[in-house]
Structures are given as structure tokens and as C-alpha cells.
């Protein structure tokens, strides 16, 4: 079957809508084997049901960790002052060629010829199903059993960088000084384990963009924000099925 013939096929429906990567992978598998076995067998991740209108926020009481750390990003408040990045670099000894968190910039059309600037802070999403952990051959990167933070054991890292390729969020870099991959760990070693309630970036933000918190604590600001009535909450790249724990919303 040629690609032109594929285009003529009927829509498969939205219940099990595969991502673009999955389609490409399936096409590749079909070309190699000549047999169409089906998504759940061939693809690396099993078919994921559409989240539908309920959004990406997990149901209360079903958080796998306790405390279940999260960061809520109120995106429209970000002004790219980059104090978060400065604080992160200082706190976690991040070299100039890498980052644990950064800010992306987009332009969004708001009318004919009119555009608005959007700043988007990004960091490790501490996914419930982290692709980086799945691919690490030495278990140097792992999900912390208690907090769910995706951590690094530098001594175990062999620098193969497979995790960097697997991460959907580009949240990892190779730190020459450690000869190991480095990433955001919600400041666990530098602040949170020492009793601080906020990460360095969250504490440095002058605009209340980054709200760090525990989802199992229903009185926390983070929990309240993503459960606010009539508010849309989204995550980045939900189609990967990684179930990220960094949530985005506007104000």
C-alpha cells in the first residue's frame, strides 16, 4: 500500500487516536514485516485512551506518591526575567552550557497582523511514566519511591545519553564536570530535603508563576490551583503518555 492509498483510508475515530510518532513507527513496522499486527503489539507504549474533556489532572486520592510533588505554572504571568534560571544555576551548580530549567518564547496570533508574546517556563516534568527511566540501561535515573521525583545517581551514569534522547521535554543535559547526565530534581538535595518548602526557581519568581507543592495536600496552593473551577489546565506533550507532573494554566 502506498502513502497515497493511506490518505484515502477512512478516519479511524478519536477513541484511540495515535500520535504522529506512533503512526510513523507503525508504518515502519509494516514496511519491515509486511504484516500489520496492530498498535498494542508493535508500538513501544500501549494504546492510550483519549483523556477527553476531563484534562490531564489525575483524580484526587489516586496520586501514586506521598508527598506527590508537582509544579503548577501560571504561564501568562511569566515575563522572562529569568530570575528562576539564575537561582537554579546558583543553587544547583549548573554550568553555562546546560540548564535544568529554561524559558521558551512563542508568538501567538491575536488578530489580523497582531501577535502576542508568550513565555513558557520548562523543566523536568517528573512524569509518572518517565520515558527516561524506562530507557536507562544502568538504572542511574530512577523514580524516587517516596516522592516520585525523577532522580539521578551520578555514579551509576555511564553517559550513554539515551535518557536525553528519550525525554519528551528536553530536560536533561550532559554535565562534563560530573561525567554524568544532570537534570532538575525539584531541588531535593539542595533545598527540599533540608526543610525548605519551595524550589529555588519557585522561591525566586517575582510573579508567582511557579507554584511548587504536594498534590496529596489538599490545602496546598498547587492542589487548589489545578482544581479551580472553570480553569483550563494542560500539560506539555500529553500524547507521549508519560503522565507529567508539571501542570500549566493561565492565572
Amino acid at each position, binding site marked *: 500500500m502506498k502513502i497515497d492509498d493511506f490518505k484515502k483510508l477512512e478516519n479511524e475515530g478519536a477513541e484511540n487516536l495515535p500520535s504522529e510518532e506512533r503512526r510513523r513507527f507503525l508504518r515502519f513496522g509494516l514496511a519491515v514485516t509486511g504484516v500489520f499486527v496492530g498498535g498494542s503489539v508493535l508500538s513501544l507504549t500501549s494504546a492510550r485512551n483519549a483523556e477527553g474533556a476531563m484534562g490531564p489532572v489525575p483524580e484526587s486520592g489516586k496520586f501514586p506518591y506521598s508527598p506527590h510533588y508537582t509544579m503548577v505554572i501560571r504561564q501568562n504571568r511569566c*515575563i*522572562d*526575567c529569568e530570575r528562576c534560571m539564575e537561582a537554579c*544555576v546558583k543553587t544547583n551548580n549548573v554550568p553555562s552550557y546546560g540548564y535544568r530549567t529554561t524559558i521558551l518564547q512563542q508568538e501567538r496570533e491575536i488578530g489580523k497582523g497582531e501577535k502576542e*508574546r508568550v513565555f513558557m517556563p520548562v523543566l523536568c516534568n517528573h512524569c509518572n511514566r518517565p520515558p527516561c527511566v524506562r530507557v536507562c540501561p544502568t538504572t542511574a535515573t530512577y523514580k524516587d519511591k517516596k516522592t516520585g521525583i525523577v532522580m539521578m545517581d551520578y555514579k551509576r551514569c555511564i553517559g550513554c545519553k539515551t535518557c536525553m534522547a528519550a525525554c519528551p521535554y528536553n530536560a536533561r543535559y550532559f554535565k562534563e564536570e560530573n561525567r554524568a547526565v544532570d537534570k532538575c530534581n525539584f531541588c531535593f538535595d539542595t533545598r527540599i530535603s533540608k526543610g525548605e518548602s519551595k524550589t529555588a526557581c519557585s522561591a525566586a519568581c*517575582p510573579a508567582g508563576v511557579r507554584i511548587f507543592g504536594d498534590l496529596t495536600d489538599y490545602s496546598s496552593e498547587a492542589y487548589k490551583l489545578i482544581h479551580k473551577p472553570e480553569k483550563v489546565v494542560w500539560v506539555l506533550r500529553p500524547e507521549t503518555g508519560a503522565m507529567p507532573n508539571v501542570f500549566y494554566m493561565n492565572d
Partner: protein
Amino acid sequence: MKRNNKSVMTIVGLAAVVGLLVFSSLSFGEEAYDEGTYGPKAPILWTKPVKGVAFMHKTHTMDAGLSCDNCHDKIFEMAAGTAEQKADFTMASLYKGKYCGTCHDGQMAFASNTRCATCHVGVKGYNKLTGAAPQGKPAGKH
């Protein structure tokens, strides 16, 4: 512009008539920016209390129709950078109707506590407008 040359004037006049007749809407939008009337063309860049905010005179004068004395010298002094030296040059002051907040109150213009990134161009915008290399990342280094 030399306006005392007769032949040039004739050509300009003819062009203007043709322009008005045929391309009236087009020629209307091609008004030249005059710094004497509309203020400095270069953006005013503030780095305090946060980096960075870009103020464009063009947006406020030529596009929005304000004149110099709407803001100078009562709200902002003529010398660029005077306001940011003051301790009360903060968002909190803007919400109270000071500085930009005089007009950006949600009535005359969009409120100061909305559409943040319209004025805040950030470190990225500051570097782009000043041509500075991002901090800690010198250009050309591998």
C-alpha cells in the same frame, strides 16, 4: 527633505494626486515616522526592578494618538531612565495609578495586571534589542 526645488515639488504633487486616486488606502499607511513629532524611534528599555521592559513611543504616539504632554513631564520625565531610579517604580505603583498605570487601568488601556508579556520583553527581548549575547553563553564558543 528639500522642499524648495520646483521640479521635485511638481513630481511629488503629481505622485500624491495619483496616489490619492488609485492607492489612497495604501499610501495612507506609509506615513514616515518623525522623531520630532512622535518621540525617539528606539525603544526605551527598563531593567529595574526586572529585566526587561520595552516602551515604544510609536505605539503610544503615532498609533494611539497621544501627544508628548500627555505623559511628559507629569507622569514621566523627558530623560530616559529617570523613572526606574525611583524606589516606587514597581507594579504595585502601577496598580495604584502611577506611571504606566495612569492610563493602563483597564479603562483607557489594558490594565497593568493583564497581558504581562505585551510590555515585558524579558531577558530574551532585552538581548535581542541591545544585540547582547545571552549571559554565560558567549557567541562562537564550543
